[in-house]
Protein backbone atom coordinates (compact mmCIF):
# COMPACT_ATOMS: atom_id res chain seq x y z
CA UNK A 1 0.00 0.00 0.00
CA UNK A 2 2.84 2.27 0.91
CA UNK A 3 4.16 3.21 -2.51
CA UNK A 4 0.65 4.03 -3.71
CA UNK A 5 0.20 6.46 -0.87
CA UNK A 6 1.96 9.42 -2.37
CA UNK A 7 0.99 12.80 -1.08
CA UNK A 8 -0.75 13.59 -4.30
CA UNK A 9 -2.78 10.38 -4.25
CA UNK A 10 -3.86 10.94 -0.65
CA UNK A 11 -4.84 14.51 -1.37
CA UNK A 12 -6.90 13.44 -4.39
CA UNK A 13 -8.77 10.81 -2.38
CA UNK A 14 -9.59 13.05 0.59
CA UNK A 15 -9.86 16.51 -0.95
CA UNK A 16 -13.41 16.36 -2.37
CA UNK A 17 -14.99 15.12 0.85
CA UNK A 18 -12.81 17.42 2.94
CA UNK A 19 -13.76 20.48 0.89
CA UNK A 20 -17.54 19.93 0.90
CA UNK A 21 -17.60 18.92 4.55
CA UNK A 22 -15.41 21.81 5.68
CA UNK A 23 -17.32 24.43 3.73
CA UNK A 24 -20.84 23.19 4.43
CA UNK A 25 -20.49 21.61 7.86
CA UNK A 26 -17.42 22.70 9.85
CA UNK A 27 -17.34 26.33 8.78
CA UNK A 28 -21.08 26.89 9.43
CA UNK A 29 -20.67 25.60 12.99
CA UNK A 30 -17.88 28.11 13.58
CA UNK A 31 -19.99 30.84 12.02
CA UNK A 32 -22.93 30.00 14.30
CA UNK A 33 -20.71 30.03 17.36
CA UNK A 34 -19.34 33.44 16.41
CA UNK A 35 -22.80 34.85 15.59
CA UNK A 36 -24.15 33.68 18.93
CA UNK A 37 -21.90 36.26 20.60
CA UNK A 38 -23.18 39.10 18.45
CA UNK A 39 -26.41 41.09 18.28
CA UNK A 40 -26.93 40.22 14.60
CA UNK A 41 -30.43 41.02 13.33
CA UNK A 42 -32.11 41.69 10.01
CA UNK A 43 -31.43 45.41 10.28
CA UNK A 44 -28.73 47.51 11.90
CA UNK A 45 -25.06 46.88 12.35
CA UNK A 46 -23.70 43.75 13.96
CA UNK A 47 -21.39 43.99 16.92
CA UNK A 48 -20.00 41.62 19.51
CA UNK A 49 -22.00 41.58 22.73
CA UNK A 50 -20.20 38.82 24.61
CA UNK A 51 -22.42 36.33 26.43
CA UNK A 52 -25.47 38.57 26.42
CA UNK A 53 -27.57 36.18 24.30
CA UNK A 54 -26.88 33.33 26.67
CA UNK A 55 -27.84 35.44 29.68
CA UNK A 56 -31.00 36.53 27.90
CA UNK A 57 -31.96 32.86 27.47
CA UNK A 58 -32.18 32.39 31.21
CA UNK A 59 -34.83 35.13 31.42
CA UNK A 60 -36.67 34.11 28.25
CA UNK A 61 -39.99 32.57 29.27
CA UNK A 62 -40.61 31.30 25.72
CA UNK A 63 -37.30 29.44 25.85
CA UNK A 64 -38.28 27.79 29.13
CA UNK A 65 -41.70 27.05 27.68
CA UNK A 66 -40.15 25.29 24.67
CA UNK A 67 -37.86 23.39 27.03
CA UNK A 68 -40.88 22.37 29.10
CA UNK A 69 -42.74 21.17 25.99
CA UNK A 70 -39.69 19.20 24.88
CA UNK A 71 -39.67 17.69 28.38
CA UNK A 72 -43.36 16.72 28.10
CA UNK A 73 -42.72 15.02 24.76
CA UNK A 74 -39.78 13.21 26.32
CA UNK A 75 -41.90 12.12 29.28
CA UNK A 76 -44.62 10.71 26.99
CA UNK A 77 -41.94 8.94 24.96
CA UNK A 78 -40.26 7.38 27.97
CA UNK A 79 -43.56 6.28 29.50
CA UNK A 80 -45.31 4.95 26.37
CA UNK A 81 -42.67 4.53 23.68
CA UNK A 82 -39.98 2.59 25.51
CA UNK A 83 -42.17 0.04 27.33
CA UNK A 84 -44.49 -0.21 24.30
CA UNK A 85 -41.60 -0.93 21.95
CA UNK A 86 -40.17 -3.51 24.32
CA UNK A 87 -43.54 -5.17 24.77
CA UNK A 88 -44.04 -5.34 20.99
CA UNK A 89 -40.57 -6.77 20.45
CA UNK A 90 -41.30 -9.42 23.06
CA UNK A 91 -44.66 -10.26 21.51
CA UNK A 92 -43.25 -10.46 17.99
CA UNK A 93 -40.29 -12.62 18.93
CA UNK A 94 -42.71 -15.30 20.07
CA UNK A 95 -44.70 -17.62 17.85
CA UNK A 96 -47.01 -15.22 16.13
CA UNK A 97 -47.97 -16.06 12.55
CA UNK A 98 -46.64 -13.42 10.18
CA UNK A 99 -44.53 -11.73 12.85
CA UNK A 100 -42.07 -10.56 10.20
CA UNK A 101 -44.78 -8.77 8.24
CA UNK A 102 -46.14 -7.17 11.42
CA UNK A 103 -42.67 -5.91 12.32
CA UNK A 104 -42.26 -4.44 8.85
CA UNK A 105 -45.61 -2.63 9.12
CA UNK A 106 -44.85 -1.23 12.55
CA UNK A 107 -41.49 0.04 11.26
CA UNK A 108 -43.03 1.80 8.24
CA UNK A 109 -43.60 5.25 9.83
CA UNK A 110 -39.82 5.59 10.27
CA UNK A 111 -39.29 5.86 6.53
CA UNK A 112 -42.12 8.30 5.79
CA UNK A 113 -41.17 11.97 5.61
CA UNK A 114 -41.72 13.47 9.08
CA UNK A 115 -43.53 16.41 7.51
CA UNK A 116 -46.02 13.95 5.94
CA UNK A 117 -46.45 12.26 9.32
CA UNK A 118 -47.41 15.66 10.65
CA UNK A 119 -50.03 16.05 7.93
CA UNK A 120 -51.41 12.53 8.43
CA UNK A 121 -51.92 13.28 12.11
CA UNK A 122 -53.65 16.56 11.36
CA UNK A 123 -56.37 14.35 9.86
CA UNK A 124 -56.44 12.30 13.06
CA UNK A 125 -56.16 14.96 15.74
CA UNK A 126 -57.63 18.10 14.22
CA UNK A 127 -60.43 19.23 16.57
CA UNK A 128 -62.91 19.74 13.71
CA UNK A 129 -62.10 17.22 11.00
CA UNK A 130 -59.94 14.73 12.89
CA UNK A 131 -60.83 11.06 13.20
CA UNK A 132 -60.59 11.03 16.99
CA UNK A 133 -63.12 13.78 17.53
CA UNK A 134 -65.40 12.42 14.79
CA UNK A 135 -65.52 9.18 16.74
CA UNK A 136 -66.07 10.99 20.03
CA UNK A 137 -68.90 12.99 18.44
CA UNK A 138 -70.46 9.77 17.20
CA UNK A 139 -70.26 8.44 20.74
CA UNK A 140 -72.13 11.52 21.90
CA UNK A 141 -69.31 13.54 23.46
CA UNK A 142 -70.44 17.15 23.23
CA UNK A 143 -67.14 18.99 23.63
CA UNK A 144 -64.25 16.70 22.78
CA UNK A 145 -60.75 17.87 23.78
CA UNK A 146 -58.71 20.18 21.57
CA UNK A 147 -55.83 17.81 20.85
CA UNK A 148 -53.79 20.22 18.76
CA UNK A 149 -53.92 23.97 18.42
CA UNK A 150 -55.25 24.52 21.92
CA UNK A 151 -53.30 25.91 24.81
CA UNK A 152 -52.48 22.78 26.81
CA UNK A 153 -52.67 19.45 25.00
CA UNK A 154 -50.40 20.03 21.98
CA UNK A 155 -47.07 18.82 23.42
CA UNK A 156 -48.78 15.70 24.80
CA UNK A 157 -50.27 15.00 21.38
CA UNK A 158 -46.92 15.57 19.69
CA UNK A 159 -45.44 13.06 22.14
CA UNK A 160 -48.01 10.50 21.00
CA UNK A 161 -47.29 11.22 17.32
CA UNK A 162 -43.56 10.93 17.94
CA UNK A 163 -44.19 7.63 19.71
CA UNK A 164 -46.11 6.38 16.69
CA UNK A 165 -43.32 7.50 14.36
CA UNK A 166 -40.52 5.87 16.33
CA UNK A 167 -41.98 2.79 18.01
CA UNK A 168 -41.01 0.48 15.14
CA UNK A 169 -37.40 1.63 15.21
CA UNK A 170 -37.02 1.15 18.96
CA UNK A 171 -38.89 -2.16 18.74
CA UNK A 172 -36.41 -3.40 16.12
CA UNK A 173 -33.50 -2.66 18.45
CA UNK A 174 -35.18 -4.49 21.34
CA UNK A 175 -35.96 -7.35 18.98
CA UNK A 176 -32.31 -7.65 17.98
CA UNK A 177 -31.40 -7.71 21.69
CA UNK A 178 -33.94 -10.43 22.44
CA UNK A 179 -32.66 -12.52 19.54
CA UNK A 180 -29.15 -12.34 20.93
CA UNK A 181 -30.11 -13.68 24.36
CA UNK A 182 -28.35 -16.96 25.08
CA UNK A 183 -30.55 -19.91 24.34
CA UNK A 184 -29.53 -22.11 27.24
CA UNK A 185 -30.48 -19.58 29.91
CA UNK A 186 -34.05 -19.44 28.62
CA UNK A 187 -34.12 -23.19 28.31
CA UNK A 188 -32.91 -23.63 31.86
CA UNK A 189 -35.45 -21.13 33.14
CA UNK A 190 -38.35 -22.93 31.48
CA UNK A 191 -37.12 -26.34 32.60
CA UNK A 192 -37.04 -24.96 36.12
CA UNK A 193 -40.70 -24.25 35.63
CA UNK A 194 -40.55 -20.48 35.27
CA UNK A 195 -43.73 -19.13 33.69
CA UNK A 196 -43.51 -16.82 30.69
CA UNK A 197 -44.09 -13.84 32.92
CA UNK A 198 -41.33 -14.86 35.33
CA UNK A 199 -38.91 -15.48 32.47
CA UNK A 200 -39.63 -12.02 31.15
CA UNK A 201 -39.12 -10.37 34.51
CA UNK A 202 -36.13 -12.30 35.86
CA UNK A 203 -34.29 -13.31 32.69
CA UNK A 204 -35.13 -11.18 29.65
CA UNK A 205 -35.36 -7.72 31.22
CA UNK A 206 -32.21 -7.97 33.37
CA UNK A 207 -30.22 -9.37 30.45
CA UNK A 208 -31.32 -6.52 28.19
CA UNK A 209 -30.05 -3.73 30.44
CA UNK A 210 -27.61 -2.52 27.78
CA UNK A 211 -30.33 -2.44 25.16
CA UNK A 212 -32.55 -0.42 27.48
CA UNK A 213 -29.68 2.04 27.88
CA UNK A 214 -29.19 2.42 24.14
CA UNK A 215 -32.87 2.82 23.36
CA UNK A 216 -33.22 5.46 26.10
CA UNK A 217 -30.36 7.45 24.57
CA UNK A 218 -31.87 7.14 21.09
CA UNK A 219 -35.24 8.38 22.31
CA UNK A 220 -33.68 11.35 24.11
CA UNK A 221 -31.62 12.43 21.07
CA UNK A 222 -34.62 11.89 18.82
CA UNK A 223 -36.94 14.03 20.95
CA UNK A 224 -34.46 16.91 21.00
CA UNK A 225 -34.49 16.93 17.19
CA UNK A 226 -38.26 17.07 16.70
CA UNK A 227 -39.08 19.85 14.27
CA UNK A 228 -41.36 18.84 11.40
CA UNK A 229 -44.11 17.46 13.64
CA UNK A 230 -44.45 20.78 15.46
CA UNK A 231 -44.13 22.76 12.23
CA UNK A 232 -46.98 20.81 10.64
CA UNK A 233 -49.29 20.12 13.58
CA UNK A 234 -49.31 23.46 15.40
CA UNK A 235 -46.71 25.76 13.88
CA UNK A 236 -45.61 26.28 17.48
CA UNK A 237 -48.82 28.16 18.23
CA UNK A 238 -50.99 29.50 19.67
CA UNK A 239 -48.66 32.29 20.84
CA UNK A 240 -45.66 29.92 21.01
CA UNK A 241 -47.32 27.69 23.60
CA UNK A 242 -46.41 24.51 21.74
CA UNK A 243 -42.89 25.36 20.55
CA UNK A 244 -40.13 22.84 21.09
CA UNK A 245 -36.44 23.80 21.29
CA UNK A 246 -35.82 23.40 17.57
CA UNK A 247 -39.04 25.01 16.35
CA UNK A 248 -38.50 27.97 18.68
CA UNK A 249 -34.94 28.38 17.41
CA UNK A 250 -36.20 28.24 13.84
CA UNK A 251 -38.83 30.88 14.52
CA UNK A 252 -36.39 33.15 16.35
CA UNK A 253 -33.88 32.96 13.50
CA UNK A 254 -35.99 33.00 10.34
CA UNK A 255 -39.31 34.61 11.29
CA UNK A 256 -38.24 36.94 14.09
CA UNK A 257 -34.87 37.49 12.37
CA UNK A 258 -32.89 37.80 15.60
CA UNK A 259 -29.90 35.92 14.19
CA UNK A 260 -27.52 36.32 17.10
CA UNK A 261 -30.01 35.05 19.66
CA UNK A 262 -31.24 32.34 17.31
CA UNK A 263 -27.70 31.06 16.89
CA UNK A 264 -27.18 31.05 20.66
CA UNK A 265 -30.27 28.82 20.93
CA UNK A 266 -28.89 26.59 18.15
CA UNK A 267 -25.57 26.29 19.98
CA UNK A 268 -27.37 25.18 23.16
CA UNK A 269 -29.33 22.54 21.22
CA UNK A 270 -26.13 21.29 19.61
CA UNK A 271 -24.39 21.05 22.96
CA UNK A 272 -27.29 18.96 24.29
CA UNK A 273 -26.95 16.75 21.22
CA UNK A 274 -23.20 16.35 21.72
CA UNK A 275 -23.58 15.48 25.40
CA UNK A 276 -26.12 12.76 24.67
CA UNK A 277 -24.10 11.39 21.75
CA UNK A 278 -20.98 11.18 23.90
CA UNK A 279 -23.04 9.29 26.48
CA UNK A 280 -24.22 6.98 23.69
CA UNK A 281 -20.65 6.28 22.62
CA UNK A 282 -19.69 5.51 26.20
CA UNK A 283 -22.54 2.99 26.27
CA UNK A 284 -21.35 1.38 23.07
CA UNK A 285 -17.84 1.09 24.35
CA UNK A 286 -19.02 -0.51 27.58
CA UNK A 287 -21.09 -2.90 25.54
CA UNK A 288 -18.20 -3.89 23.36
CA UNK A 289 -16.02 -4.37 26.43
CA UNK A 290 -18.48 -6.72 28.08
Amino acid at each position, binding site marked *: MKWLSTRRALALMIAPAFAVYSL*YFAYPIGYSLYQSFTNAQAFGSTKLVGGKNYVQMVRDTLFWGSLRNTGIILLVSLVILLPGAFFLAH*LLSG*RVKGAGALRAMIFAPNVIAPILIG*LIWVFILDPHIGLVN*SLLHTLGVQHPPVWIGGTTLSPWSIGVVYTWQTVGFIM*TIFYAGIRMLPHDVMEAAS*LDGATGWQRLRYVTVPMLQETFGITTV*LVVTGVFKIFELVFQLTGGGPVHLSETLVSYT*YWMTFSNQKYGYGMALAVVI*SLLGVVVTVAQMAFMRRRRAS
Partner: protein
Amino acid sequence: MSTLSTTAPRLARPDAPPSPRGPRRRRLGIAAIVAYLVTFVLILPMAWVVLLSFQSNDNILRDPLNFSHLSWANYSTAMSTLNLMTMYKNTLILAVVSVSVGVVISFTAAYALTRMVFRRPGLQKSLRFYFLAGLAIPVYILLFPVYKLNIELGLYGTYAALILPYIATQLPFNVLLFTGFLADFPGEIEEAAIIDGAGLFTLSWRVVFPLMRPVIATLLILNIIYVWNEFPFAVTLINNPAMTTISLGVSQFQGFWTVDYGAMMASATLVLLPQLALYGIFQRYVVAGMTFGAVKG
Protein backbone atom coordinates in the same frame (compact mmCIF):
# COMPACT_ATOMS: atom_id res chain seq x y z
CA MET B 1 -49.65 -7.87 31.20
CA SER B 2 -49.99 -11.10 33.13
CA THR B 3 -51.57 -12.65 30.06
CA LEU B 4 -48.01 -13.08 28.82
CA SER B 5 -47.86 -16.45 30.51
CA THR B 6 -50.17 -17.69 27.78
CA THR B 7 -47.73 -16.81 25.03
CA ALA B 8 -46.72 -20.43 25.29
CA PRO B 9 -43.49 -20.64 23.35
CA ARG B 10 -40.95 -22.37 25.54
CA LEU B 11 -38.31 -20.11 24.03
CA ALA B 12 -38.68 -16.62 22.75
CA ARG B 13 -37.50 -17.55 19.26
CA PRO B 14 -39.28 -18.74 16.18
CA ASP B 15 -36.34 -20.90 15.17
CA ALA B 16 -36.10 -22.70 18.50
CA PRO B 17 -35.57 -26.43 18.49
CA PRO B 18 -38.54 -28.39 19.81
CA SER B 19 -38.54 -28.33 23.57
CA PRO B 20 -37.74 -31.54 25.44
CA ARG B 21 -41.44 -32.04 26.06
CA GLY B 22 -42.09 -32.56 22.37
CA PRO B 23 -43.34 -30.11 19.75
CA ARG B 24 -46.14 -27.77 20.78
CA ARG B 25 -49.27 -27.25 18.80
CA ARG B 26 -49.44 -23.84 17.15
CA ARG B 27 -52.48 -21.93 18.24
CA LEU B 28 -53.70 -18.41 17.93
CA GLY B 29 -52.77 -17.33 21.41
CA ILE B 30 -53.65 -14.12 23.18
CA ALA B 31 -50.21 -12.84 22.21
CA ALA B 32 -51.04 -13.11 18.53
CA ILE B 33 -54.40 -11.40 18.96
CA VAL B 34 -52.76 -8.54 20.86
CA ALA B 35 -50.02 -8.26 18.22
CA TYR B 36 -52.52 -8.08 15.36
CA LEU B 37 -54.66 -5.55 17.20
CA VAL B 38 -51.75 -3.26 18.04
CA THR B 39 -50.44 -3.41 14.47
CA PHE B 40 -53.93 -2.62 13.17
CA VAL B 41 -54.15 0.45 15.41
CA LEU B 42 -50.67 1.54 14.33
CA ILE B 43 -51.38 1.41 10.59
CA LEU B 44 -54.82 2.99 11.02
CA PRO B 45 -53.61 6.63 10.68
CA MET B 46 -52.15 5.91 7.24
CA ALA B 47 -55.10 3.79 6.17
CA TRP B 48 -57.47 6.54 7.31
CA VAL B 49 -55.90 9.14 5.01
CA VAL B 50 -55.97 6.73 2.05
CA LEU B 51 -59.59 5.76 2.74
CA LEU B 52 -60.79 9.32 3.17
CA SER B 53 -59.08 10.44 -0.01
CA PHE B 54 -61.94 8.65 -1.81
CA GLN B 55 -64.62 10.52 0.12
CA SER B 56 -66.26 13.70 -1.08
CA ASN B 57 -65.27 16.78 0.85
CA ASP B 58 -68.81 17.24 2.24
CA ASN B 59 -68.74 13.73 3.59
CA ILE B 60 -65.38 14.26 5.26
CA LEU B 61 -66.78 17.26 7.11
CA ARG B 62 -70.18 15.82 7.92
CA ASP B 63 -70.08 12.04 8.02
CA PRO B 64 -66.56 10.71 7.48
CA LEU B 65 -67.44 7.22 8.71
CA ASN B 66 -70.00 6.68 5.94
CA PHE B 67 -68.24 4.87 3.11
CA SER B 68 -71.12 4.49 0.67
CA HIS B 69 -70.02 7.03 -1.97
CA LEU B 70 -66.38 6.56 -2.81
CA SER B 71 -64.89 8.14 -5.93
CA TRP B 72 -61.66 9.18 -7.64
CA ALA B 73 -62.78 12.81 -7.85
CA ASN B 74 -60.24 14.10 -5.34
CA TYR B 75 -57.47 12.55 -7.38
CA SER B 76 -58.40 14.34 -10.56
CA THR B 77 -58.59 17.60 -8.59
CA ALA B 78 -55.20 16.96 -7.02
CA MET B 79 -53.51 15.87 -10.23
CA SER B 80 -54.80 18.79 -12.26
CA THR B 81 -54.09 21.61 -9.82
CA LEU B 82 -51.05 20.44 -7.89
CA ASN B 83 -47.61 20.40 -9.42
CA LEU B 84 -46.74 16.95 -8.11
CA MET B 85 -44.61 16.11 -11.12
CA THR B 86 -42.41 19.16 -10.52
CA MET B 87 -41.96 18.17 -6.86
CA TYR B 88 -41.02 14.62 -7.79
CA LYS B 89 -38.65 15.85 -10.51
CA ASN B 90 -36.86 18.27 -8.15
CA THR B 91 -36.55 15.68 -5.40
CA LEU B 92 -35.21 13.13 -7.89
CA ILE B 93 -32.56 15.55 -9.24
CA LEU B 94 -31.42 16.43 -5.72
CA ALA B 95 -31.36 12.79 -4.63
CA VAL B 96 -29.53 11.41 -7.68
CA VAL B 97 -26.80 14.07 -7.72
CA SER B 98 -26.18 14.44 -3.98
CA VAL B 99 -26.36 10.72 -3.22
CA SER B 100 -24.13 9.54 -6.08
CA VAL B 101 -21.51 12.24 -5.52
CA GLY B 102 -21.78 11.82 -1.75
CA VAL B 103 -21.27 8.06 -1.79
CA VAL B 104 -18.30 8.28 -4.19
CA ILE B 105 -16.41 10.95 -2.25
CA SER B 106 -17.16 9.32 1.11
CA PHE B 107 -15.74 6.09 -0.25
CA THR B 108 -12.51 7.64 -1.50
CA ALA B 109 -12.04 9.52 1.78
CA ALA B 110 -12.79 6.43 3.86
CA TYR B 111 -10.38 4.39 1.73
CA ALA B 112 -7.59 6.89 2.25
CA LEU B 113 -8.32 7.11 5.98
CA THR B 114 -8.26 3.35 6.57
CA ARG B 115 -6.10 1.74 3.90
CA MET B 116 -3.49 4.21 2.78
CA VAL B 117 -0.31 5.09 4.60
CA PHE B 118 0.16 8.59 5.94
CA ARG B 119 3.59 9.91 6.63
CA ARG B 120 2.22 11.18 9.90
CA PRO B 121 -0.24 8.70 11.42
CA GLY B 122 -1.40 11.46 13.75
CA LEU B 123 -2.83 13.36 10.79
CA GLN B 124 -4.79 10.31 9.67
CA LYS B 125 -6.27 9.92 13.16
CA SER B 126 -7.27 13.55 13.47
CA LEU B 127 -8.82 13.59 10.01
CA ARG B 128 -10.86 10.54 10.90
CA PHE B 129 -12.03 12.27 14.07
CA TYR B 130 -12.79 15.44 12.10
CA PHE B 131 -15.14 13.60 9.76
CA LEU B 132 -16.83 11.49 12.43
CA ALA B 133 -17.34 14.41 14.84
CA GLY B 134 -20.16 15.53 12.57
CA LEU B 135 -22.25 12.60 13.79
CA ALA B 136 -22.81 14.34 17.11
CA ILE B 137 -24.08 17.64 15.68
CA PRO B 138 -27.80 18.19 14.99
CA VAL B 139 -28.19 19.78 11.54
CA TYR B 140 -30.31 22.66 12.83
CA ILE B 141 -27.25 24.69 13.78
CA LEU B 142 -26.27 24.66 10.08
CA LEU B 143 -29.48 26.09 8.63
CA PHE B 144 -28.84 29.80 8.96
CA PRO B 145 -25.09 29.79 8.22
CA VAL B 146 -25.65 27.61 5.13
CA TYR B 147 -28.37 30.01 3.94
CA LYS B 148 -25.90 32.89 4.31
CA LEU B 149 -23.11 30.90 2.68
CA ASN B 150 -25.26 30.14 -0.37
CA ILE B 151 -26.00 33.84 -0.79
CA GLU B 152 -22.29 34.68 -0.46
CA LEU B 153 -21.33 32.07 -3.05
CA GLY B 154 -24.09 33.13 -5.42
CA LEU B 155 -25.74 29.72 -5.21
CA TYR B 156 -28.99 30.79 -3.56
CA GLY B 157 -31.92 29.59 -5.62
CA THR B 158 -29.99 26.85 -7.45
CA TYR B 159 -29.98 23.08 -6.97
CA ALA B 160 -26.39 23.29 -5.76
CA ALA B 161 -27.59 25.30 -2.75
CA LEU B 162 -29.26 22.11 -1.49
CA ILE B 163 -27.00 19.47 -3.00
CA LEU B 164 -23.90 20.70 -1.18
CA PRO B 165 -25.38 20.67 2.34
CA TYR B 166 -27.06 17.32 1.59
CA ILE B 167 -23.67 15.82 0.71
CA ALA B 168 -22.02 17.44 3.73
CA THR B 169 -24.59 16.30 6.29
CA GLN B 170 -24.51 12.72 5.04
CA LEU B 171 -20.72 12.51 4.89
CA PRO B 172 -20.01 11.61 8.53
CA PHE B 173 -22.39 8.63 8.50
CA ASN B 174 -21.21 7.44 5.08
CA VAL B 175 -17.56 7.66 6.10
CA LEU B 176 -18.34 5.82 9.34
CA LEU B 177 -20.04 2.98 7.50
CA PHE B 178 -17.31 2.68 4.86
CA THR B 179 -14.46 2.81 7.39
CA GLY B 180 -16.21 0.21 9.56
CA PHE B 181 -16.64 -2.09 6.59
CA LEU B 182 -13.13 -1.57 5.27
CA ALA B 183 -11.71 -2.42 8.68
CA ASP B 184 -13.16 -5.95 8.42
CA PHE B 185 -12.00 -6.28 4.82
CA PRO B 186 -9.17 -8.77 4.19
CA GLY B 187 -5.98 -7.16 2.86
CA GLU B 188 -4.90 -10.11 0.69
CA ILE B 189 -7.11 -9.12 -2.22
CA GLU B 190 -5.43 -5.73 -2.43
CA GLU B 191 -1.98 -7.24 -2.04
CA ALA B 192 -2.65 -9.59 -4.92
CA ALA B 193 -3.88 -6.73 -7.06
CA ILE B 194 -0.81 -4.63 -6.25
CA ILE B 195 1.46 -7.52 -7.20
CA ASP B 196 -0.43 -7.70 -10.48
CA GLY B 197 0.54 -4.08 -10.99
CA ALA B 198 -2.71 -2.32 -10.13
CA GLY B 199 -2.49 1.41 -9.54
CA LEU B 200 -4.46 3.26 -6.90
CA PHE B 201 -7.35 3.96 -9.23
CA THR B 202 -7.72 0.36 -10.34
CA LEU B 203 -7.27 -0.85 -6.80
CA SER B 204 -9.88 1.34 -5.14
CA TRP B 205 -12.43 1.50 -7.96
CA ARG B 206 -12.05 -1.75 -9.85
CA VAL B 207 -11.11 -4.07 -6.99
CA VAL B 208 -12.39 -2.82 -3.64
CA PHE B 209 -15.44 -0.74 -4.52
CA PRO B 210 -17.29 -3.59 -6.31
CA LEU B 211 -16.72 -5.80 -3.26
CA MET B 212 -18.45 -3.25 -1.04
CA ARG B 213 -21.80 -3.85 -2.69
CA PRO B 214 -23.81 -4.52 0.51
CA VAL B 215 -22.63 -1.29 2.15
CA ILE B 216 -23.15 0.70 -1.01
CA ALA B 217 -26.69 -0.61 -1.38
CA THR B 218 -27.47 0.27 2.23
CA LEU B 219 -25.95 3.73 1.90
CA LEU B 220 -27.71 4.48 -1.37
CA ILE B 221 -31.06 3.62 0.15
CA LEU B 222 -30.52 5.49 3.42
CA ASN B 223 -29.17 8.56 1.63
CA ILE B 224 -32.04 8.58 -0.83
CA ILE B 225 -34.55 8.32 2.02
CA TYR B 226 -32.79 11.19 3.76
CA VAL B 227 -32.95 13.51 0.75
CA TRP B 228 -36.48 12.40 -0.08
CA ASN B 229 -37.71 13.24 3.44
CA GLU B 230 -35.48 16.22 4.16
CA PHE B 231 -37.40 19.28 5.24
CA PRO B 232 -35.42 21.81 7.35
CA PHE B 233 -32.89 22.67 4.61
CA ALA B 234 -35.58 22.64 1.93
CA VAL B 235 -37.80 25.11 3.77
CA THR B 236 -34.83 27.35 4.51
CA LEU B 237 -33.05 27.32 1.17
CA ILE B 238 -35.78 27.14 -1.47
CA ASN B 239 -37.34 30.44 -2.46
CA ASN B 240 -38.63 29.55 -5.88
CA PRO B 241 -41.87 27.56 -6.36
CA ALA B 242 -40.43 25.82 -9.42
CA MET B 243 -37.85 24.20 -7.14
CA THR B 244 -40.29 22.88 -4.53
CA THR B 245 -39.38 19.41 -3.29
CA ILE B 246 -41.83 16.77 -2.10
CA SER B 247 -41.39 17.54 1.60
CA LEU B 248 -41.71 21.26 1.05
CA GLY B 249 -44.78 20.65 -1.08
CA VAL B 250 -46.40 18.56 1.65
CA SER B 251 -45.84 21.35 4.17
CA GLN B 252 -47.79 23.69 1.87
CA PHE B 253 -50.77 21.38 1.29
CA GLN B 254 -52.83 22.86 4.13
CA GLY B 255 -52.29 26.39 2.91
CA PHE B 256 -52.86 25.39 -0.69
CA TRP B 257 -56.08 23.40 -0.29
CA THR B 258 -57.38 25.30 2.76
CA VAL B 259 -60.78 23.60 3.18
CA ASP B 260 -60.68 21.03 0.39
CA TYR B 261 -59.75 18.17 2.71
CA GLY B 262 -60.56 15.52 0.11
CA ALA B 263 -58.01 16.91 -2.33
CA MET B 264 -55.56 17.39 0.53
CA MET B 265 -55.86 13.73 1.49
CA ALA B 266 -55.54 12.61 -2.13
CA SER B 267 -52.37 14.71 -2.42
CA ALA B 268 -51.02 13.20 0.81
CA THR B 269 -51.79 9.69 -0.51
CA LEU B 270 -49.95 10.42 -3.74
CA VAL B 271 -46.87 11.16 -1.65
CA LEU B 272 -47.40 8.41 0.93
CA LEU B 273 -47.91 5.39 -1.34
CA PRO B 274 -44.68 5.72 -3.36
CA GLN B 275 -42.74 6.04 -0.10
CA LEU B 276 -44.39 2.92 1.30
CA ALA B 277 -43.81 1.05 -1.98
CA LEU B 278 -40.13 1.96 -1.95
CA TYR B 279 -39.87 0.83 1.65
CA GLY B 280 -41.68 -2.41 0.85
CA ILE B 281 -39.18 -3.25 -1.88
CA PHE B 282 -36.03 -2.42 0.07
CA GLN B 283 -37.36 -3.16 3.54
CA ARG B 284 -34.48 -5.40 4.65
CA TYR B 285 -31.80 -2.91 3.69
CA VAL B 286 -33.69 -0.02 5.21
CA VAL B 287 -34.23 -1.64 8.60
CA ALA B 288 -30.69 -3.02 8.74
CA GLY B 289 -29.18 0.31 7.73
CA MET B 290 -31.24 2.43 10.10
CA THR B 291 -30.55 0.26 13.10
CA PHE B 292 -26.92 -0.38 12.19
CA GLY B 293 -25.39 2.12 14.58
CA ALA B 294 -27.50 0.99 17.51
CA VAL B 295 -27.40 -2.77 17.09
CA LYS B 296 -23.84 -3.22 15.92
CA GLY B 297 -22.12 -2.98 19.30
